[in-house]
Each structure stands twice: as structure tokens, then as C-alpha cells.
């Protein structure tokens, strides 16, 4: 069972701290995005990294379009991984869509979670009555178009490399280049699930201690959205980072790490 999960979610474990930290990447990337952050926590934490099914080096064959047609499918995977590794009282770090996946997993099995760190969270991307998410349906259609036109050159020959093939070292180099590559059909599906979802009502149910890390200029998750999350998660702290873009752990790792550390102390 555990071996199957390790292959499915490309689970990697590093560090030997007594506490556990599970970091989950967001849409469009994989566990490589944590590489500036993880070295700073290795001493105090056992660090668990995963690739969401369909992303990075996860088992593409495990991608079930029905299961992953809502974030619940991913949340079930998180609970499964934590159970298999016997993880309890963990610090869950979720970037972007995985912040919401963390919320759902938390609601399913609160005992697993000690603290939640959300980086650039958004419970809903599409604007609604009395809600600013930042996007319209048309914007998401444009995203899907961009995805489609960029995958025109995506060769199916890359598939085995992306799926991972440890017994063929010659693919390793290709794998290096395949950072954040995903099967185009999966990428499109995941994009729709991510950007058309609505998890606002789940925020109010969350009671776990939560840190919200917000960039001051993030086109994906604006400050307003971050503050909405802060307002609706009862036990939350909001920290505005002086960083641009949607990935402060990549663009401003020092600030991100400092904010995480001062919260976790």
C-alpha cells in the first residue's frame, strides 16, 4: 500500500526532525518548487514532499478524471498519504490550490493537522455577487486556450519521461527539463477544477491554527482574496509579504522562510 502511494504521489522524505511538515505544490508545478524552503526546516522537521496526481513525477496512470473533478479527490489522497506514513500533528504547507486541498483534508481528518500554512490561497477565483475573486469565466477560457496552444508542441514522446522511469537513467536529463510539465489533457482538467471551484463555505468550518502568506502583488490571489480567507478562517494570522507574483517561496524565499519560522516558533 505504502509503496503504491509513494509511486502514485512521488512521495519524498527528508530531514529528521521530530515534527512533520508536509508541503504541497499548487497548480502548474511540482515538489521542486519547495527547494529553496525545505533546507531551512530540515533540522527541526521531517519534511514530506509529494506531487499531486497528474503533476510532476506522480503516476499519471492514477489520474482518474472523475475522482479529480473536485479538490476532494486530492484531499482524500492527502489523508491517505498521512495515514500510510502514520503522520499526526503535522504542519501542512499548501501553495495556491493546495491551500484549499489542505483545508478539505483538514476537515476530513482534523487529527492529522497541527498547523496550516497557506501560501497565496483563494477559495474561489471567479467573481461572484458580493465576492471579488479576480477573474471572470472568460479569463479562465483564455487560460485554457493558452494551455492548449502551448501544448501543441507537447510531444507524446515526452510522456514516459514525465511519468518517471527510474530504470532508465538516460531519461533523467529529460526529467530535469520536464519540471512542471504535465500531460496536456490533465493540465486542462486540473486548471478547470482549480479555477472554476468554490470552497468558500469550507473556510468557515476550519478551526486549525492557520497562517496566510500573501504577496503584495499577486495576479492569481489578490490581497482582497487573502483577506477574505483571513476573515473566514477563525484561527488565522495574515502576513503580507513584500514579494511580487504568486510564488513567494520561489521569488522571495528568504521572506517566506522568515514568516514561516516566526509563526512556527
Amino acid at each position, binding site marked *: 500500500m505504502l509503496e503504491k502511494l509513494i509511486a502514485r504521489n512521488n512521495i519524498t522524505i527528508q530531514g529528521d526532525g521530530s515534527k512533520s511538515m508536509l508541503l504541497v505544490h499548487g*497548480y502548474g508545478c511540482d515538489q521542486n*518548487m519547495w527547494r529553496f524552503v525545505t533546507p531551512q526546516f530540515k533540522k527541526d522537521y521531517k519534511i514530506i514532499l509529494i506531487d499531486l496526481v497528474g503533476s510532476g513525477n506522480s503516476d499519471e496512470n492514477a489520474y482518474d478524471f472523475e475522482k479529480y473533478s473536485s479538490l476532494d479527490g486530492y484531499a482524500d489522497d492527502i489523508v491517505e498519504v498521512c495515514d500510510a506514513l502514520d503522520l499526526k500533528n503535522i504542519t501542512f504547507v499548501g501553495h495556491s490550490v493546495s491551500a484549499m486541498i489542505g483545508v478539505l483534508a483538514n476537515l476530513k481528518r482534523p487529527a492529522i493537522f497541527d498547523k496550516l500554512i497557506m501560501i497565496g490561497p483563494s477559495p474561489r477565483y471567479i467573481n461572484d455577487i458580493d465576492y471579488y475573486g479576480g477573474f471572470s469565466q472568460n479569463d479562465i477560457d483564455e487560460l485554457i486556450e493558452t494551455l492548449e*496552444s*502551448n501544448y*501543441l*508542441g507537447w510531444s507524446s514522446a515526452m510522456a514516459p519521461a514525465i511519468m518517471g522511469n527510474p530504470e532508465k537513467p538516460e531519461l533523467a536529463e529529460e526529467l530535469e527539463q520536464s519540471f512542471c510539465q504535465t500531460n496536456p489533457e490533465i493540465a486542462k482538467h486540473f486548471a478547470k477544477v482549480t479555477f472554476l471551484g468554490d470552497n468558500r463555505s469550507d473556510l468557515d468550518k476550519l478551526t486549525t491554527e492557520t497562517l496566510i502568506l500573501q504577496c503584495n502583488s499577486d495576479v*492569481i490571489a489578490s490581497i482582497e482574496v487573502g483577506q477574505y480567507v483571513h476573515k473566514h478562517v477563525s484561527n488565522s494570522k495574515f502576513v503580507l509579504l513584500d514579494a*511580487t507574483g504568486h510564488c513567494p517561496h520561489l521569488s522571495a524565499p528568504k521572506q517566506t522562510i522568515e514568516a514561516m519560522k516566526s509563526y512556527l516558533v
Partner: protein
Amino acid sequence: MNYNIDYKELYNTSPCGYFCSLPDGTIIDSNKRFLEFSNYKREEVIHIKKFTDFLSVGGKIYFQTIYAQKLNLTGTVEEINFDFIKKDGTKFPVLINSVEIKNKEGHHIFTQSTVFNISQRKKYETELLIAKKKSEALSNELVLKNKELQIGSELILQQKLQLEKFNQELENKNKQLSNFTHIASHNLRAPVSNLNSLMAFYNESTDTEDKAMLFTKFEIVIDHLTETLNELIASVKIQMDVNIKHDSVTFDAVLSKTMQILEGKILESNAVITSNFSEAPDIEYPKLYLESIILNLLSNSIRYRSPNRIAKIHLATEVNNNEITLIVTDNGLGIDLKKHGHRLFKLNNTFHRHPDSKGVGLFMTKIQIETIGGSIDVESEEEKGTTFTIMLKKKNNYEYPPFNRYY
């Protein structure tokens, strides 16, 4: 020849656009070609616009979630297709290659990007995309149609099986109906002829006490006749059921009921009827069947008794291999089985020149027994008697026939 290459001129007039941007995306320099592509003046772009300002909102999401992450992780991205927005709001498709430029300490200082205008190629790509989508839609449609066909053929198969089932049911119902006609006439015949015998006694008798006693017998036989009629009517309803209803029946009760029905005949014949049902006092069996079987065998034995001796009829049950067997023995006329054995249970066969012989009873009895999965055997010797051995079959050993072949 000496070519004095003017690199600044090359930078500005190359057939592709160049621009440099800070890590936050702010454009700090661009060549003329890029300005031409986008229709902006230099002072409107440099230090004013960011890379993402040229992108639609959907493009910005792609930039943040895919382009920026990949550039940050690998230091380079190639052949990313965006739609760039010109000053007048129109768009043109571009392919972008970007590379991160780092200082000695490895810090990202700025990003250099090359911009190719791919308007012509894009038209072709769009056509390809449309064709691809069309072929995908077509293939999906084919898969769907295929499924529909499969479902259709399964339906037809199911309907065929259903029709076969209905046909079988009809056939069975037909058999049931013809059997029912026989059983109805026969089972009504015995009590009616009993009534006639009682009537004869009644007419002959001069004793008022005897007459009164006989009159109560009339009542009993009429009651039974009514009951038989009601049961026949009920059995018509039972025929609608898929399975034959099994009741918990006591042999003693069935026998005494039968003896009451045959009271007149028993009195007339002075027959001695004994029984021993101790080995199997009761059975799960269709009550109407068992009553019919015992009535038929008993009235047969009385009817074909020997005129040379008092009729003795003995009924008993046995259990053999978990199956209940009913044995009916008499000391009557007997049948020449060598002569008649093969026709014994056939319809409309009689073996005695007896006024009551109609040749129906044994036929029905056999069919009733076999419907429940049992069997009937006969041993007989002329002028000694006859023994019927009936393997009735217990309910738990009995496999229901697919349909009610008989009521």
C-alpha cells in the same frame, strides 16, 4: 570585405523583439522591433510596463502558474506562446524564449526575452487545433454510437430472452389449464358420486334415526364439496403465481378429511382403512395436491376392491434419503402390470370393466407428484392387491420448476 557590424543596430532591427525585465516583470529595455510589434513608443514602455501588462488575464494566470515557476526553477523557458496586446487593444501571437541573467552571487538580476511574431504560423496552428478538436469530437461521437449500438444489441438480446420466457410461460399456462380441467372434473366427481350413494342409502332407509344420521353426512359431504370448489377457485388464482405454494400439511388431517369425503363409499364397501404416519407425520407440500393424491388413491382402492374379501387399505409414510415416501397398499383386484403397466398412468385408460372407471385419477396423481419433483411407483398382482409408493420430496430438496406447470 570588411563588414563593420553595428551590434546596436543589429539589436534594434533584428527580425525579432528583445526586451529585458526585472524580476518583478518591469521592462527596463527593449529593441525597436518589439516596440514596432506592440505599437508603443519607447517612453510608454520602459520602466512603465511589466511583461504581464502585455497579456490577457488568462495569459497572466498562465504566466504566473507555468512560465514564472519554470523560469525560476530552471533559469530558462522556451517556445511559450502568448497573445500580446498591442497599444490599440488588438492582439498578436508570439513565441517567447526567456533566460534569467544572474550576478556573480547567483542572484537573479533581470530576465532577457526574445519575442517572435508568429501570426502566420498561428493561423495554421489554429486550423490544426480546430481539426484536432473536430476529430476528437468525431471519435467521441463514434465511441458513443458504438456504446449505443452495444446497448441496443443487449436490449434486443434481453427482449429475445424475455419473449422466450413469455413463450415458455404461455406453454405452461396452457398445460396448466388443460390439467386443471381434468382435475376439476375429477375432484368434483368423487364427492358428487358419494352424494349419490348417500342419497341411495337415504332413499332405501326407513329408519328415521338412520335418515337423520345420513342427513348429517350429506351436510359434511356438501361442506367438503363446497370447500373443494373454493379450493379449485383459489387454485385458479394460485396459477398466476410463479411458484407453487407449499403448506405445512399433516397426513392424519388429510386422511381424515378424505375419509369424510368418501364416507358414503366407505360405508357402502365396509372397507377397513388403517394408517401409520409416525415416521413422517407432516410435510411441506401443496395441500391441494396432497389431498388430491390421497383422495384419488383411496377412492381407486375402494372402487377396485375385490368382491371376494373385505377391502383393507393401509397408508403409511417413510423417510428414505431425507425424502418422505407415502405408501398406499390395498388387497384389491390388482392390475396385470405386464399387460397394462405401460398405460397405467396415461389419460383415459381404464383397466377394469367397472362402472365408475373414467381413467383420469392416476394420470392426474402422477402429474401432480412430478410437478413437485417426486415420483410414483406401483407394484401389483392380480387378485392380491396393489401398492403405490410415492416419493413426495421434501420442500428443501425440491427445486422449483421455472413456472407453475400445474396449480
